[in-house]
């Protein structure tokens, strides 16, 4: 009896062990080209002249393609930038990954829907008799909270989610008893801000209710330095993050310190943070 039980337990264990392998083997295979679409917020969609703010736009660099998911269209729309064509794809063939990126499945069938017309300021296409237009997303200007920035920019959210702040630096920042303010000037038009400011947003999120306060200020590209708030702080470029302790500026995150801004903040506060990889 005992032997039977042992054998049954062993068989069950073997089955449970093999199951994930089997499931992994059956996991949907991504298309060789149309994969690795990441959220993209440089462009906004309008359909038949009306803004479609809930549309989700993804971009795959290597595939040179945009993928648009919007309730305004019956199916996801694939925009092939190199061929300047537009196709629709079955929603079931779009696989969302855990990291927020999206793949088309290998067996996805692209149903041609027409041509993409391209101008200097954007592009337009027609799907199912509806006209979609992609135009540059308006810049985020003025005083903003981190939550607003994350809500505004899907790419910021994507990068922030993937970033892992250094736990030691976070601990040091949480222990800060002084009145600490991190004032960050950014330009939503600036590619370097797009690549780095999300790390600071994640740091703010990770700190939670710590005493460190984060404020963000969006600057326009034209006349950036002439903006009164920028002139007041002597801003000549973005992103510029100023650390203010008890009402006094103690330093700025250096341009080469943005890969881990939380460590740069700790260094500016006068403490050492253990190096961490991105």
């Amino acid at each position, binding site marked *: 009896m005992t032997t039977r039980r042992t054998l049954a337990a062993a068989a069950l264990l073997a089955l449970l062990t093999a199951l994930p392998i089997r499931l992994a083997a059956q996991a949907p295979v991504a298309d060789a080209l149309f994969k690795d679409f990441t959220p993209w917020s440089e462009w906004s969609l309008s359909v038949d002249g009306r803004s479609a703010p809930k549309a989700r736009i993804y971009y795959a660099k290597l595939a040179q393609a945009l993928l648009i998911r919007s309730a305004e269209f019956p199916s996801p729309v694939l925009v092939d930038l190199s061929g300047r064509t537009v196709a629709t794809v079955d929603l079931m063939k779009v696989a969302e990954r855990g990291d927020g990126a999206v793949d088309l499945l290998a067996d996805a069938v692209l149903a041609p829907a027409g041509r993409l017309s391209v101008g200097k300021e954007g592009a337009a296409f027609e799907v199912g008799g509806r006209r979609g237009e992609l135009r540059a997303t308006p810049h985020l200007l003025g005083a903003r909270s981190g939550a607003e920035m994350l809500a505004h920019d899907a790419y910021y959210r994507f990068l922030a989610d993937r970033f892992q702040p250094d736990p030691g630096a976070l601990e040091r920042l949480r222990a800060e008893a002084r009145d600490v303010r991190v004032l960050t000037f950014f330009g939503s038009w600036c590619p370097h801000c797009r690549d780095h400011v999300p790390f600071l947003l994640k740091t703010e999120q990770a700190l939670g209710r710590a005493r460190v306060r984060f404020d963000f200020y969006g600057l326009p590209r034209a006349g950036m330095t002439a903006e009164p708030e920028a002139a007041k702080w002597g801003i000549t470029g973005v992103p510029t993050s100023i650390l203010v302790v008890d009402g006094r500026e103690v330093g700025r995150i250096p341009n*080469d310190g943005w890969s881990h801004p939380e460590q740069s903040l700790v260094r500016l506060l006068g403490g050492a943070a253990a190096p961490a990889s991105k």
Partner: protein
Amino acid sequence: MATASLPETRAEQARPRAAAWLGLAGGLALGLVLLAAALAKALDPRAFGEELAALGLTGPLPPFVAALGALALEALIGALLVANLRRLPVLAAASALVAFFLFVTGRDAWRAAHGQVDAASACGCFGNLVDRTPAEAFHQDLLMLVPALALAWLGRPGATRRVRARAAAALAAALAVTGLAAAAPDLPLDGWATRLDRGVEVASLCAGRDAERVCLTGIAPELATGRRLVLLVDISDPGFEALARDLNARQRAGTEPPVTVLAEIPPERGQELFWTVAPAFELHDVPRALLRPLYRTLPRSFLVETGRVTATWSGLPGDLAVAREPR
């Protein structure tokens, strides 16, 4: 009376001799500085022409021609001073040149002090990336040039023997510098004239200082590891879109090594390129202060292996396959 006046006579005799030596030293120092500066600029006369054009000093002349003229003048004045021909016209010209340098650096310092700093970056993200502030540049010029110039005025007119031979030698030196500048664009001098050469660590290619310092690996992190072909290009060049299409095809085919393109890219042009080119390769906007010291003419290319430059090309490597012998 006669014996009492003797020491005064010696002093009177020694004074002009000391003045002549001081004048010679001042002229020599100033002349060498001017010659060295002219020689350095002669390696990349196009960059110097761009600077003159930015200052509005080229007049109706093409920047390259204006640069040759300015270099000839600077080298001639420097060589005449080195030859100790400290005649009034030479010193007047040297004084005007020094005054001009001080005017330019002083104006920049004033502008910086009054918040009128031009953004040096194409995308406008970065501030004015300078390795020395305009105020520092002004003070360094002031300290290096003015004392030497003041000394050069002492004990004029300098050499009185073999004047023609000295003048001819100075003229020959100036012509040599100008000739070098005229020929430089076609000479393989990139390694001398730029900061990009074999063996250079990519992480060491930086611009600006303190908090504003920007390094190439910060802008293009993929250059820190692996093997990549890097192209420095002018995206306003009519041939760029055709090149970009080739690079896209290469990237999609998975051809090794992958390509990174570095250029000055204004945001509106970047958005336009998204639709017209849709780069499948890595394309980075690099501020001018960081990019300009890396080339004399565009395009220029280099190969990076584990963060170190292992080959450079003037132009593009043949068929982009990194097969051609680098220079």
